[in-house]
């Protein structure tokens, strides 16, 4: 219910842009859920700060075209023009990087997660500091719940990637390992 209301509100403010409205003003509704300063405090909702603009553009495009299905985002992206998509993704990239969690993380779990990330070469596409590059997203300090949910969705291919890379990469990773990976990436410094 909460989500639906948010989506409707956002829809209203994004869909009827007055020319005078700046991108900051138009994005206020996005940040209500995704976090004012790049860090999301909403369950299962990703932090957007410092996200790679090309990746953000791909996701907004996929939401608009319903290639990625999540109703509130599909509704919000529906009225956006190509230029809107570009403007929002460029804006997202300028938000401050998400803040790492206050605790440094349990050393044993961090070690497990790090080993998994190395074995699966997450750093090859996502960059050595997990800041991402181009169409590959920043994942460093992303919300742990969102990371775990996303990895699970890639694994069962219920979230279709733009291409199939993540579906393939996730094939041999067990459920418990997803939790360790998400924990590590969320806490990485």
């Amino acid at each position, binding site marked *: 219910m909460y989500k639906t209301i948010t989506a409707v509100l956002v829809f209203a403010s994004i869909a009827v842009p007055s020319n005078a409205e700046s991108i900051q003003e138009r994005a206020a509704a996005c940040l209500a859920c995704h976090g004012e300063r790049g860090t999301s405090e909403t369950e299962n909702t990703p932090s957007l700060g410092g996200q790679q603009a090309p990746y953000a*553009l791909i996701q907004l495009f996929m939401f608009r075209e319903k*290639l990625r299905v999540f109703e509130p985002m599909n509704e919000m992206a529906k009225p956006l023009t190509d230029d809107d998509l570009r403007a929002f993704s460029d804006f997202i990239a300028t938000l401050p990087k998400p803040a790492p969690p206050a605790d440094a993380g349990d050393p044993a779990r961090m070690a497990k997660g790090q*080993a998994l990330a190395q*074995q699966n070469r997450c750093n*090859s596409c996502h960059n050595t500091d997990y800041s991402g590059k*181009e169409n590959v997203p920043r994942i460093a300090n992303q919300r742990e719940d969102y990371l775990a949910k996303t990895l699970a969705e890639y694994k069962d291919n219920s979230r279709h990637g733009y291409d199939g*890379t993540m579906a393939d990469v996730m094939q*041999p990773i067990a459920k418990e390992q997803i939790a360790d990976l998400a924990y590590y990436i969320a806490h990485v410094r």
Partner: protein
Amino acid sequence: MTDHSLAPRSLLLAGAVFGALTFGAAAQQPAAPPASGAAPAAQPLPPGSPLIGRPDNEAAAKLAPVAPPPLPASADKLPLAKLKVPAGFNVEVYAAGMANARSLALGDKGTVFVGSRLVDKVYAIVNKDGKRSVKVIASGLYRPNGVAFKDGTLYIAELSKVSKIDKIEDNLDNPPKPTVIYDKLPKDEAHGWKFIAIGPDGKLYVPVGQPGNNVLHDADHGQIRRMNLDGSGAEVYALGVRNTVGFDWNPETKQMYFTDNGRDWLSETVPEDELNRVTKAGEDFGAPYCYQGNIIDQELGWGKNCKDYTAPVGLMGPHTAALGMRFYTGSMFPKSYRNAIFIARHGSWNKSQKQGGDVVVVKLNKDGTVKSMEPFMTGFLEDNKYVGRPVDVMLLKDGSMLVSDDWNGAVYRVSYGKPKVAGQ
């Protein structure tokens, strides 16, 4: 086709081979990063991962598959001025605004059908009263890369099924949903998208790629199948095929020629992509044991011999992603192009200095072997970055040639002689 239950076992086998090699390599590197020492027991990369076989060095770590921008470029933003063709030829924009435009097929009434891979649509470029417009004729599809046309019917290949729409050109404004004719296909993402075409024997040819960069696999992968146009009578036509995204038939010999993409990560310079010729059904072209006709794979090729496989008739350059290809059977281009093969090279990702990103022309000897290969349409690659990427080529009835570009979501038309407005 045979059981899918085989898949896990043979894929595991591939994983085991890889795991064993990785461990060997790790043992030889005393200076391995500290955390890798603490790594749990062997866990191979998944079979479909593009990272299989990647050597551990900084230059290699910079390379990853290149994804095109999602939004198609508007007509005025296309890199038309940068595209170069030989003297006497002209390039124009035929149609734009088709996100991720990939494979091409021509309808009897002049409609051009365009598949896509990263979006869910098949487009039609419609010619009506001398005007061209783009329509979406099917959406909600999954990686509908392949399109083919015969006797009024459009065939569409998604990742794991083939469908058709009858009398499509009579129903462009309100086309019915595609009906499935064949779905006994694996669902792997890796090399799962398909190019399709109909041969001179009236059969539909459908490839199934190998499910990863360099992997052993079951009997359902690594092949080209052919079947009747209703999906019945499917049989394996060619084996040892890693990932073909383009084929056509020699107008004189009626033999099938197909491009095949070589494995990644072996080196910057080999293996080269292949241009193959099928002389009889059931031929094996070597992958993943033998590449480019003379390289035994360093991981999977032990105990194998390249002599046991059909060698390519032509080499297309390392990692260049030779995709769509057609014989030139038109009369507009000069005589020297008659029955030559135009091949779109999508361009490399697995190479520090990118290569390909062009359309080349391959001329054949009388016996069907390759005489020469020259660049024909260049300019898609600039400062080691793509400004466009050609995917498929196709002739129009007037002998001009279309080239699709999935980076920009556009189709170009190449003509010869005095520039004039495209017509059919």
